[in-house]
């Protein structure tokens, strides 16, 4: 007789998302289950391979029986959940959030090197943002071109902190961080010194690759060349975990 099967310590649950019956592991988040099943959930700060940040609020979903919206990236699935990912209300909120992002800094796509390859631009198109109702802040932030390979343009930054997390969690350098409060927040290298003078930066370029917009780009690239590759991240993250 074979020995009794060892019980796995993670349960499998069933839930419905947009009316579809799905099964998932209890340690998965809603966004992971959605992506597995090709259910589109918009998100800007979430990136597979990095820790969950929960800040862009675009992945909010509705849960039956609960008034408060849940962030799909930071909520684990539970048995019997009934989730709606694309209601009229959610679409309206997402549009407004994207508009707020556009108005916060000077996101002018026509003069951006990431034009056509920008996740914010893509998100606006997906959410149906064809104009911005709130006034642009017109705050002027400096561009940091002190690094020999890369450039940082605060005006294009949406503070998703992907660069901060990838540098800390994958590269292990923790060159990036955030300073300031509210809309005055900005990403910094080391102790807010020019990127080119950073002692900790390894020039690995991971931050540039994961940046969703034109805030972090390679120097001297044209619009056609500045295509970002984020496929390396889940593979790297898994390898790190396996070690």
């Amino acid at each position: 007789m074979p020995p009794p099967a060892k019980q796995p310590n993670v349960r499998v649950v069933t839930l419905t998302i947009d009316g579809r019956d799905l099964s998932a592991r209890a340690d998965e988040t809603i966004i992971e289950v959605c992506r597995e099943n090709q259910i589109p959930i918009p998100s800007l700060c979430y990136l597979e391979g990095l820790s969950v940040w929960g800040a862009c609020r675009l992945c909010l979903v509705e849960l039956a029986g609960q008034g408060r919206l849940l962030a799909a990236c930071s909520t684990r699935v539970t048995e019997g959940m009934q989730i709606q990912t694309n209601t009229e209300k959610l679409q309206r909120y997402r549009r407004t959030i994207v508009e707020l992002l556009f108005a916060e800094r000077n996101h002018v796509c026509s003069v951006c090197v990431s034009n056509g390859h920008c996740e914010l631009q893509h998100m606006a198109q997906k959410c149906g943002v064809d104009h911005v109702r709130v006034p642009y802040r017109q705050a002027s932030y400096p561009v940091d071109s002190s690094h020999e390979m890369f450039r940082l343009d605060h005006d294009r930054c949406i503070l998703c902190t992907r660069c901060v997390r990838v540098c800390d969690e994958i590269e292990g350098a923790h060159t990036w961080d955030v300073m300031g409060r509210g809309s005055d927040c900005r990403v910094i290298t080391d102790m807010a010194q020019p990127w080119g003078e950073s002692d900790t930066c390894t020039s690995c370029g991971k931050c540039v690759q994961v940046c969703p917009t034109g805030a972090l780009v390679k120097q001297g690239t044209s619009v056609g060349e500045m295509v970002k590759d984020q496929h390396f991240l889940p593979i790297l993250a898994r390898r790190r975990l396996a070690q």
Partner: protein
Amino acid sequence: MNLDDLADLAEQYRAIDANVEREVRVCMAASCQSSGAAPVRDALVAGLGESQPSCKVKGVGCMGLCSAGPLVSIADRDGSLEESTIYRDVTADDAADIIASLDGPPVERLRCPTDQPFFARQQKIVLENAGIIDPDSFKGYVAVGGYSALIRALSEMTPADVLREVTDSGLRGRGGGGYPTGLKWSTVAKMPATQKYVICNADEGDPGAFMDRAILESDPHRVIEGMAIAAYAIGANKAYVYVRAEYPLAVERLQTAIRKAKRSGFLGNKIGDTQFSLEVEIRLGAGAFVCGEETALMASIEGLRGQPRPRPPYPAESGLWGYPTLINNVETFANIAPIVREGGDWFASIGTERSKGTKVFALAGTITNTGLIEVPMGTSLRDIIEVIGGGIPGGKAFKAVQTGGPSGGCIPAQHLDIAVDYDSLKTLGTMMGSGGMIVMDETSSMVDVARYFMEFCMTESCGKCVPCRTGTQQMHGILDRLAKSQATRAELALLEELCEVVQATSLCGLGQTAPNPVLSTMRYFRDEYEAKLGDA
């Protein structure tokens, strides 16, 4: 140590001042100090000299009526505030008159009647020692029965007994949310973990609120005792007080209290000769409103940037450094010793059906008696403002009261008869909050009020989530244009929509409640918004 030993100790401490029959108590809390209490005390000490050994000058905590400070009270040694003679607006020059009157009739020109509703209508549990004991004196606290609740819990009760009393008391979190304290404690107690933490949230940052500050400045040992009982009940051996650095006097008194409690064996290893140990440390907050939010507060203690994280997991499950953590507000902890001492049923007999006990409020704004009061839950707003607070000065009419700080809202005159508790305030679109009340008269512009609170939320947003970071900014922009009569009707509609989005989508309580002052003023004073429209 058992209760009898503690009673003996209290008796010894009382015997030190056995010859003192009367006390001249000078309020040395922050408000009275800022209006010159220290020179008054010095003048009284110098004036009294050694002439009357039966009379002693003592620095005490907050007596409540901050608008009349510096306050001095003359009381029998064990006398309560109401039984004493209170002098208001005392200066150093008045010291001679006060000393001269000690054996005769009181100085009428300085007298502040104690039979007035401000004193007579209060019921003090949290503030029972405030204004009576010297907050820096460990002996003084023990002499009035301090630490007896802790010793009783340790020597006569199991942690489950303590949890039962707290649950029976019906106490709800005084930080604003009103979450049942007993439930929170038992959740943390049930978590299997090798390490647990207790945190006292003293990061009070609402405009117009100074309850926690006054409690810490008046009776710091009381808070420590409550924390120690909580730690015993949930199985923690390490506690933090997260207090903002803008409260230097509270921090100093807390430090003194922790040091003295430790030296006397009420903190540290093997408290009261039992197996229970507790270390209490102070963590200073650099002054960010968001750090009052529990997950941001814990991040700050851990040395990280004070930003909230999504919940769940709640701190009870995964808190400080991933361990189960109990976070309560200062006032919540200050309620614990009386609950253990008198029993949960006693506490539950005070207040309303769903909100038990008393609540400390800070009265501010255009009101005759600004200061600190403690009343039973369910007291009507009218009683608080018109009777206890003395109404609006200068013959002006009452317009609204703002409760709950930037997370709360404004209550207009037609709802003044509402009984104040957690649930009734929510039905009016505001909240209890930690207990700040800002009273406004007819001259206040509600659009300006909304703009003020939105500016606060905008500048205090941590910047993590998009709706709070930039939504509050856009809302402030519209309110600013409204206040200048430049906004259009379309912008007003946009403001309402932004309120909805920021409320529904923000990451933490700061953003989710930021639109409340706008929504509540719009609900009750919409005409003022309409009148300010540029294209009206």
